């Protein structure tokens, strides 16, 4: 079953750009994990945690918190796994504007 989110219609024009930037974050997490740059992973996770729910993507906030934690604990594999989960999430999420 696909995830479904309800987003404020005032933000509709911002969502495509928002999702595109998250794909960029996913790539950056994978690259940082390969380079063992855990500080970068932590920062990206922290940002995702802060912005996801604001745009209506509560799942992004939760995944961001977990990625931040993985960065703190220097768990590169865990961060990659979470990045993949986010990738899948954005592929399948159904967005409705209200």
């Amino acid at each position, binding site marked *: 079953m696909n995830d479904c989110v309800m987003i404020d219609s005032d933000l509709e024009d911002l969502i495509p750009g928002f999702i595109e*930037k998250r794909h960029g974050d996913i790539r950056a997490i994978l690259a940082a994990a390969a380079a063992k740059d855990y500080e970068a992973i932590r920062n990206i996770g*922290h940002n995702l*945690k*802060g*912005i996801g*729910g*604001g*745009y209506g993507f*509560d799942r992004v906030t939760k995944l961001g918190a977990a990625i931040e934690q993985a960065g703190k604990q220097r768990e590169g594999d865990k961060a990659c796994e979470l990045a993949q989960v986010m990738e899948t999430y954005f592929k399948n999420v159904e967005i409705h504007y209200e």
Partner: protein
Amino acid sequence: MAILIVDDSADSRVLIKRFLEKHGFGKVLTVENATDAFALLGLDQPEGLAKNIDLILMDGVMPGIDGITACQLIKSHAWFKDIPIIIITANDNAETLDKAFAAGAIDFITKPIKQLELKARVNSVLNMKHAIDQRKAREAELVKVLEELESVNRELSRLSSLDGLTGIANRRHFDQIYEMERQRAVRTGHDLSIVFFDIDFFKYYNDTYGHQEGDDCLKKVAAAAGSVLKRPGDLLARYGGEEFVAILPETEVTGAYKVAQDIRTTIEKCNIPHSASKLTDHITVSIGVAGGKMSLTDKQQELLTLADKALYEAKSGGRNQVRVAERNSH
């Protein structure tokens, strides 16, 4: 009115700006770090630059200068100490919030941003800021009015001590200064002298030339006598009608006599025509002088009475002269 958002996350800046604009909070400015915020505010200038900022929304965690330190720096500037700052933080633990409030933040909002919470908190802070601004404006107005009042009072006080015609001290002011100087002389043991004079045959002058010319004559006499008194502590006053009096603190009677002679000759040299004078064809004055040490047992008006008596002697002795009163008890 404007709100400044300081956040390193572009997504956060865009989102908060969108929410604020949606709810009609007016102009919204955004910068991505504390340094840019300082530049926009003009923090390095004594009077600041951006005085239209009503509220700052500051991300707590930023690269470089963090939001809490930035808050502290902004609050330490005289122009921005009253600008409310709300810290936006994903870390709402007690330690972070404690630091934020200690730095001068008025409130905090947790990330992710919730639209209704943002609106309510911003509304509340702006209402408070508006009330503070109104209070400050009223206080500034009050200070201005008080300053004006003080200025008017000073001017009224000055005017109430002057004689309206001659511009020298009036009788009321003379009485105050005389008593003050008398007490000072008792306290310090210094001499105090009084020079009392009036214009000879002034009634005839008025009868001959009219009251307008009489007034002009009084002004000239006052100016001439005033030019003789050069020490700051000396005071020349119009005692009443054509009578004048000078207080000479810390002056022995011999010195006062010289001053009196100077007054007399200076006035005479003015050569103010007085065809009705029974002495000469110009204005002259008769002068009585009294002075010496003051003591607690002296009557308050003693010196004045003596100077007045000496003036009477000068008059009865032929006018246009100075007489010195003798003080038996000193």
